[in-house]
C-alpha cells in the first residue's frame, strides 16, 4: 500500500511539474554560457582596469595625506569606492551592451540557438557572466582599498572592514546597471544602448528630484508622469553609501535587505523584459 502510494506520488509530481528534470539541465546551460561570458571578458582584458585602479590607490595613499590636511583615510575611501563605482559603470555599460550584439555580429548566435538553448537562458547566462566579472573586479578593488587603509594607518584600521557593506551596495547597483545595458542591447545598437544606459545611470541618481517634481507639479498629468518615472526608473540613490562609509558608518541591515530585495525584483523585471523582446527578435 505504502509502495503504491510512493510510486503514485512520484508519477504525479512528474505530471504536475514536467520541467523539473530539464530545469537542472537549463541551469547547467546557463552556467556554461555564464562561464564563457566571464572567460570572454578576461580574454578581452576587461580586468586590466584593476592595474589602473591599484596605481590610483598607491598614488592616493602616498600623496593625499599632504593635500588633504590629514584626511587621507576619508579621501582614500571616497576615491577608492568612487573609482570602483565609476570603473564598474563603464564595464557594465561598454561590456554589457556588447554581450548580445557581438554574438549577432559574429553570427555565433546561429550556432548557439541551433542547440537546445532558450533565448532567455542565453540572456541570463550572459548577464550572470558579466556579473561574475564585476564581482571579481569589485572584490579585488575592495581588497585594494582595505590594504591602502592599513598602509596609511601603519597598522590595522577598522575602516578596512566597515567599508564592505558599501562595497556590496555598489556591486548591487552595478548588477542593476548591467541588466539595463542588456535590456537596451536586446533591441538597439551598442552605441545607442550605451548612451541610454548611461542616461539611466544619471537619472537613477536624480530619483529624489523626480519624486519632488512629482509632488510639486501643478498639473495632474505632469504629476503622474514624474511619479511614473520615479517608480519605473531604477532608484540608484538607494545604493549610494560611499560618503557615510568614509566616516566609518555602516548601513542599517533592514535598509540593506530592502535595497537587495528592490534589486532582485528590478533585475528580474528587466531580464524578463529583455527576454520578451529578444525572443521576438528576428536575426535574418
Amino acid at each position, binding site marked *: 500500500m505504502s509502495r503504491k502510494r510512493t510510486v503514485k506520488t512520484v508519477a504525479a509530481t512528474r505530471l504536475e511539474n514536467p520541467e523539473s528534470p530539464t530545469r537542472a539541465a537549463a541551469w547547467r546551460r546557463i552556467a556554461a554560457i555564464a562561464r564563457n561570458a566571464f572567460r570572454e571578458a578576461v580574454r578581452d582584458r576587461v580586468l586590466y582596469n584593476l592595474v589602473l585602479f591599484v596605481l590610483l590607490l598607491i598614488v592616493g595613499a602616498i600623496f593625499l595625506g599632504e593635500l588633504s590636511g590629514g584626511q587621507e583615510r576619508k*579621501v582614500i575611501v571616497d576615491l577608492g569606492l568612487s573609482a570602483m563605482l565609476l570603473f564598474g559603470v563603464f564595464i557594465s555599460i561598454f561590456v554589457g551592451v556588447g554581450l548580445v550584439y557581438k554574438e549577432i555580429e559574429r553570427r555565433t548566435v546561429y550556432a548557439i540557438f541551433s542547440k537546445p538553448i532558450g533565448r532567455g537562458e542565453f540572456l541570463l547566462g550572459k548577464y550572470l557572466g558579466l556579473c561574475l566579472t564585476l564581482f571579481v573586479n569589485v572584490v579585488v578593488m575592495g581588497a585594494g582599498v582595505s590594504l591602502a587603509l592599513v598602509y596609511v594607518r601603519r597598522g590595522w584600521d577598522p575602516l578596512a572592514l566597515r567599508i564592505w557593506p558599501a562595497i556590496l551596495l555598489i556591486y548591487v547597483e552595478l548588477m542593476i546597471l548591467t541588466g539595463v545595458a542588456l535590456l537596451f542591447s536586446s533591441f538597439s545598437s551598442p552605441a545607442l544602448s550605451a548612451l541610454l544606459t548611461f542616461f539611466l545611470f544619471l537619472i537613477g541618481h536624480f530619483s529624489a528630484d523626480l519624486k519632488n517634481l512629482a509632488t510639486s507639479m501643478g498639473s495632474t498629468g505632469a504629476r503622474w508622469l514624474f511619479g511614473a518615472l520615479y517608480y519605473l526608473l531604477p532608484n540608484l540613490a538607494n545604493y549610494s553609501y560611499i560618503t557615510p562609509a568614509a566616516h566609518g558608518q555602516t548601513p542599517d541591515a533592514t535598509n540593506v535587505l530592502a535595497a537587495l530585495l528592490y534589486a532582485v525584483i528590478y533585475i528580474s523585471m528587466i531580464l524578463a523584459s529583455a527576454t520578451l523582446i529578444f525572443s521576438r527578435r528576428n536575426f535574418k
Partner: protein
Amino acid sequence: MKMEANLKQSNWTRRDAVLVFAIILGLTSVVMTSHWIDARRPPVDPALEEERLYVNGQSAKRLSFGFNGLLADWYWMRSLQYVGRKIISLRSDVPLDDLGSLNLKLLAPLLDTSTALDPQFIEPYEYAAVVLPSIDVNEAIRITKKGIDANPLAWRLYHQLGYIYWQQRDFKNAGEIYGRGAEIPGAPAWMEAMKARMAVEGGSRGTAREIYLRMYEQAGDDQVKDMARRRLLQLDSLDQRDLIRNELSAYSNKTGHCPTSWREIEVLLRASRFQVDASGAPLDPSGTPYRLVKNGCDTDLDPKSEVPYK
C-alpha cells in the same frame, strides 16, 4: 648593411626605428612648446581668480551622481590650497586665525560647498570656525551652526562655536553654547566648566589658555592644531613679558635708569626661573631671545620668533 641586419634580427624594421624617433621627437617638441606657451601666458586676472563659485552646495550635491563624498574632499582640498597659496604669496608668517588681510572671499563658499556635499565631514566646519571669523564672522557662525544641525552629537562643534563667540567677546552666548555642548552624551567635563568660566572670567588669559589647550587636544586638522599651539605659546609669552616688565621696573626704580643690556638684569631673570641665552637675554617659549626696547625700559618679541605678534 650591418645595422640593417641587426634590425632584422631583432624584428625591428627601419620603419619602426623612424616611428620611435618621431614619437620621441614629438614628445620633446610638446614639452618645449608647452614651456614656450606657459612663459608667454598673460597673468591671470585676480578678479577672475576670485570669481564666485558657479555651483552652490545643493546644486553640486545634485550633480554629483553619488560621488558627493569625493567632490566634498575635492572642495576641502581646494580650500586648503586656496588659503595656502594666499599665505605663500604674502611671504610672511600669519597665524591661521588672523587671515583677514588676505582677502579670502572664496573660502566661505568653498567650505560651505564641501559641507553641503558631505554634511558629516567635521574638519571643514572646524576650519571655518578657526579661519573664517577674521574674514566674515557671520559666515563662520552660520557654517558652524549648519554643522551642529547636521551632526547634533558632535560636541567638538559646540566647542568651535563657543570659541567664535568668545573671540567676539560675546561671553554670554559662548557660555550658553558650551552649556549646550556639555549636555551631549560623551562630552568631556571641561565643557561644563567652560560654561561657568565664561560667565565669571570670559576675557581672562586663563580662559583663553583653556580654550586653546582643548582646541590643541581635540583638533583633527594639523593646521588648526598648530594654530592652537602657537596661541598657547603667545599666552605663555604674554605672562613672561609681564614678569620681565616687573623686573625691568624694579631695576629702574632701584638704579634710576633702565638697563642698557640684558646682562645687567640676568641675575634677576635667572631668579625668576627664566631661561637665558649667552648674552643673558631671556628666551621666549619658542626659544628665541626677547629684545630690549624703548631704551631698555620695555621688552618685546623678536620679529624672527615663532610666537605670534597679534
